[in-house]
C-alpha cells in the first residue's frame, strides 16, 4: 500500500483485512504497556491545514504507540499565511526528514496533489467534503465489534450528508462490507445526485428509524452552511434529532454512533449520547487502533526483498 487516501475502490476483502489488523492493535492498546516498536526511528508528520484537535491527537497517539516520532504542522502558526504555497510547505517539511504525512485540508483532493510531490506515503485525514477513510474504518470496526459482521445490517446515516466526508466514506465502506445503508436528510442536505451512492435515500427519519440496527448521527455543520437550510436548530432537532423519544423507538439492540464533536441537544440528545448503546467513546478508542493499523501498513516492516 503506497498511500491511504480513499475508501473508494477498496474491496470487502481489503477492508476486512484492515479491520483484522486493527483488531490486533486494539489488543496492543489494552496491554499494560500499550506500545510496540514497529515504527521506531520513523517520523510521521501531521499536516492539518484545516483546524482539528481531536483527529490530530488520535493520529499522533497512533504514531507514538507504534514508537514513531511525530511532527505537527497547523496553519494558524505557519508561513502559509505569509504566502508560501502548499507545495513548498510540503517539500519543506519533507526535507526535515519525514517518513509519512497525514494530511487534512479543506480543499478536495489536496492529499492526492501532495502524493504527486513526495515519494513518502500520504494518509488522508479528511479532504473537503470528499473522504475521511480512517473515520470509516473506525466506524466499521466499532459496528463489527458489536454485531460480529456488517452483513445485512440496516444502517441509517442521518444529517448533512451533502457536505460530509464522513458520510461519503462511511457509505462506501459499510456497503462494501455488506450493509444496507440509508441516507436520511432533507433534500437540500442529500447529495445533488443521490443515485451515485450505493444507498437508499429518505427525508423522513421517523419512517426508517425502527428498522435500523445502527443510527449514525452526523454533526450539524454550521461552518459548512448546513444549518442555514433550517430556520432554526430547534426545527432541525424536531425533524432529524436523535431525541430520547426517537431512541426509545429503536430496536432494543440497535446502537448509535457519532463522529464527534457532538452538539448535545441538537442532532443528539445528551441522554442518548450517554446511553450504553451509544458507542461514541468506543469509536474514539478504535480510532487510535485503526490509525495504527494504517500507519503500520504504510510504514511497518518494509525493506522487503
Amino acid at each position, binding site marked *: 500500500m503506497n498511500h491511504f487516501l480513499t475508501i473508494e475502490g477498496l474491496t470487502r476483502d481489503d477492508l476486512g483485512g484492515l479491520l483484522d489488523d486493527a483488531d490486533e492493535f486494539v489488543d496492543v492498546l489494552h496491554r499494560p504497556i500499550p506500545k510496540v516498536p514497529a515504527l521506531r526511528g520513523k517520523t510521521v508528520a501531521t499536516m492539518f491545514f484545516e483546524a482539528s484537535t481531536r483527529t490530530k491527537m488520535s493520529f499522533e497517539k497512533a504514531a507514538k504507540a507504534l514508537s514513531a516520532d511525530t511532527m505537527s504542522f497547523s496553519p494558524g502558526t505557519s508561513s502559509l499565511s505569509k504566502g508560501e*504555497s502548499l507545495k513548498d510547505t510540503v517539500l519543506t517539511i519533507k526535507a526535515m526528514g519525514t517518513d509519512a504525512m497525514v494530511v487534512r485540508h479543506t480543499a478536495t*483532493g489536496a492529499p492526492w496533489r501532495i502524493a504527486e510531490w513526495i515519494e513518502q506515503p500520504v494518509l488522508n485525514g479528511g479532504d473537503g467534503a470528499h473522504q475521511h477513510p480512517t473515520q470509516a474504518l473506525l466506524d466499521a470496526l466499532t459496528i463489527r465489534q458489536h454485531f460480529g459482521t456488517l452483513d445485512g445490517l440496516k444502517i441509517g446515516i442521518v444529517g448533512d450528508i451533502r457536505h460530509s*466526508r464522513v458520510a*461519503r466514506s462511511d457509505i462506501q465502506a459499510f456497503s462494501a462490507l455488506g450493509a444496507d445503508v440509508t441516507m436520511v436528510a432533507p433534500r437540500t442536505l442529500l*447529495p445533488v445526485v443521490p*443515485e451515485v*451512492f450505493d444507498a437508499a435515500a429518505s427525508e423522513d427519519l421517523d419512517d426508517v428509524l425502527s428498522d435500523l440496527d445502527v443510527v449514525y448521527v452526523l454533526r450539524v455543520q454550521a461552518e459548512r452552511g448546513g444549518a442555514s437550510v433550517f430556520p432554526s436548530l430547534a426545527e432541525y432537532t424536531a425533524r432529524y434529532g436523535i431525541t430520547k423519544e426517537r431512541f426509545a423507538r429503536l430496536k432494543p439492540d440497535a446502537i448509535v454512533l457519532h463522529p464527534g464533536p457532538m452538539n448535545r441537544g441538537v442532532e443528539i440528545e445528551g441522554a442518548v449520547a450517554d446511553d450504553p448503546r451509544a458507542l461514541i467513546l468506543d469509536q474514539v478508542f478504535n480510532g487510535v487502533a485503526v490509525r495504527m493499523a494504517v500507519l503500520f501498513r504504510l510504514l511497518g516492516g518494509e525493506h522487503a526483498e
Partner: protein
Amino acid sequence: MQSELILAGGTVLTADGPIEADIGISAGHIAEIGVGLDGNETIDCAGAWVGPGLVDLHAHFREPGQEWKEDITTGSRAAAAGGYTAVVVMPNTDPAIDAGHLARFVADRGAEVGLVDVVPAGAVSKGRAGLELAHLDELWAAGVRVFSDDGDVVADAGLLRRAMDYLAARGGVISQHAVDVGLSRGGHMHEGAVSSLLGMYGIPSAADDVIIARDLELVEVTGACYHVQHLSTANGVAMIAAAKSKGLPVTAEVTPHHLAFDHHAAEGTNPVYKMMPPLRSTEDRDALRRGLANGTIDVVGTDHAPHADHEEEVPWEHAPNGVIGLEWAAAVVNTYVDLDQEAFFDRLSVAPARIGQVKDQGLVPAIGGPANLTVFDPKREWTPAASLSKAQNSPYLGLPLRGKPMVTVHRGVVTAVDGAMA
C-alpha cells in the same frame, strides 16, 4: 513561372471544392494553383488537406500585465504550431483592453513578433468591471470588431443592451462569456454525479442557459450580432439552433476541451481539467459534437488560457480556470468530430474570420489571395508530449490524437512545420 514556395501535392480547398494540386506562393500571395509547379522551395503535402490558415476567435495571450503565464511571443508560437495564422486575443489583460491605445499596443506587439495576426478584442465595460461602457468608439477606430468582457459575463442586462445598441448600428459583435454569476458562485465543477461523489460545490447547466436565454431576448430587441463563447450545455445548443431558425444574428463557439472531455475527467481532481464553463455531462459533450458537425455551432474557439506551473500545482478548488489548446485544437476537432475538409476549414478558419471580421484570413485559396494557409494531415496519429507555450496546463499531453497541422504559412512565410517553429 518560378514561385518562392510550393506546397506540392496536397488536397487544396478551392471555391470549386477540394482538388489535388500544388500551390505556388510569392511575395506573400498565392501566385498559382496547378500541377507540377516549380519553385525555390517545395514542401511535399501529399495526403494532407490544404486550406486557409486557421483563425481562433478566442485566446488569452496575457500581455500586457500577466506575462508570467504567457506573452504575445510565446502565444504566437503556440498558435503557429497549431496551424493558426490569426488569433483574436481577449482583453482580460492588466490593464484590460478598454481603450484604443491599448488595442493598438497589442496589435503592434503581434506584428512585431510576426508569426500570426494578433487581433485584439475590446472590453465591453471599462476595466471589465461591468459598470460603465468602455471606450467603444476608440476601440472601433483602432480596428476592434469583437467586444467581450471575457473572464466575466456582462451581467447587467441594461449595460449589455446599451453596448448592443451601439454595435448594432456599426456591425461589431458582442462575444459573451455566458455563465451567470449567482448560479456559479462557490462552484468548482459541473453540478452532477461527479460533483456529488467528490462532495464539491457544482455549477449547474442552468448557469450558462439563463444567460443565453436572457441575451437572446436582447438580440431580438437590438438586432446586434451576438456570439456565445464556449458553449457547454446541450440546452445551449438547442437555444442557438432555435435562434438561428428565427433568423437572429447569433453565432456560437465550442472549445476543443468541451469536445474531448466530460465531467468524468474531473474525478482525479487534477486541475488540468478545470475550466469555466466546466466540463459537463457526457450527453452535453455529445450534443456539442453534433452541434459542431451540423453547423449549429459555427466555430471552434480554443479559449487558450495559460497559467503558470505554480498556479496549477495546487488543489482543484484553489486552481485558476482554463487550459491551453492552440497547438492541438485542430487535432482534437478532427479526432472527436466527423468533419470533411470543407467543414473542417469552415469551423476552424472561414467562419471565425467572418464572425470576427478578420481581414486577409479565412479565405479559401485563390490566385492573388493572401498566402495564409494551413496544411493538415487528417490521418496522422500522434500524442502531444510538451507545449511551446510558457504554460504547460494542457489536458492533451499524453492523449493520442488523430490529425496534425504539418505546415503553417503566414503571409507567405513558413512559420511552423510538424508542431515546431520553422
